[in-house]
């Protein structure tokens, strides 16, 4: 079972855990990304995400197919939120389930790293000084942290 979604509502990580849970799995790995208050040394007050939704969902599906080939993980759910988010809000949740922990954890790491490279979603940060800017991870160094 695999499911991907770009959503405009709050993400409930517990719901993703429930969705992948099954007696056959001894491990569920969950990654939750949240809105941070500092980026590249600047004080962030809020942000908004936008997406090329059709391609984002198709790239997410392609990543999950790659993850299955690489780690043998067949049960994965990914939700990415778009729209206006506040500090602390969940922007993304990834749940991977597998009989054993290592593939589940490796798969989760792989999925978030691939998302950061190839899923057409963009982030505009709003700063304490009233300015705002589209984030370019290659420029800010966020790609490596």
């Amino acid at each position, binding site marked *: 079972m695999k499911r991907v979604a770009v959503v405009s509502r709050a993400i409930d990580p517990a719901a993703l855990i429930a969705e992948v849970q099954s007696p056959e799995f001894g491990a569920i790995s969950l990654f939750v*990304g949240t809105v941070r208050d500092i980026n590249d040394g600047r004080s962030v007050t809020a942000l908004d*995400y*936008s*997406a*090329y939704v*059709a*391609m*984002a969902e*198709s*790239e997410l599906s392609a990543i999950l197919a790659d993850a299955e080939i690489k780690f043998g993980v067949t049960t994965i759910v990914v939700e*990415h939120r778009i729209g206006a988010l506040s500090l602390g809000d969940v*922007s*993304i949740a990834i749940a991977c389930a597998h009989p054993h922990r290592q593939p589940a954890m490796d798969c989760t790491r792989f999925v*978030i790293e691939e*998302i*950061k*490279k*190839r*899923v*057409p*979603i*963009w*982030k*505009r940060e709003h700063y304490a000084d009233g300015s705002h800017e*589209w*984030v*370019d*991870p*290659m*420029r800010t160094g*966020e790609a490596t942290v």
Partner: protein
Amino acid sequence: MSMVTVQLFASYAEAFGESTLKIPIDNARTVADLVRSIRSLPCGQSLPASPRVAVNRKFASDEQLIRTEDEIAVIPPVAGG
């Protein structure tokens, strides 16, 4: 004249003040031609020399051929997660 419709997003849409552009197919036979044509427009220099371009929702090479019915998008640096 047949035109190609190009979708713009995020910083690129902001730079052009538009979410779509129409480019004559004669100036956009390949992805590289398309990028050259867009960069020659007013505000075109806000696009890098080799931006990522998607054709029918997949990242495309510079050499990929373009047809008028293709779904084309220029993809700014992604920042999901």
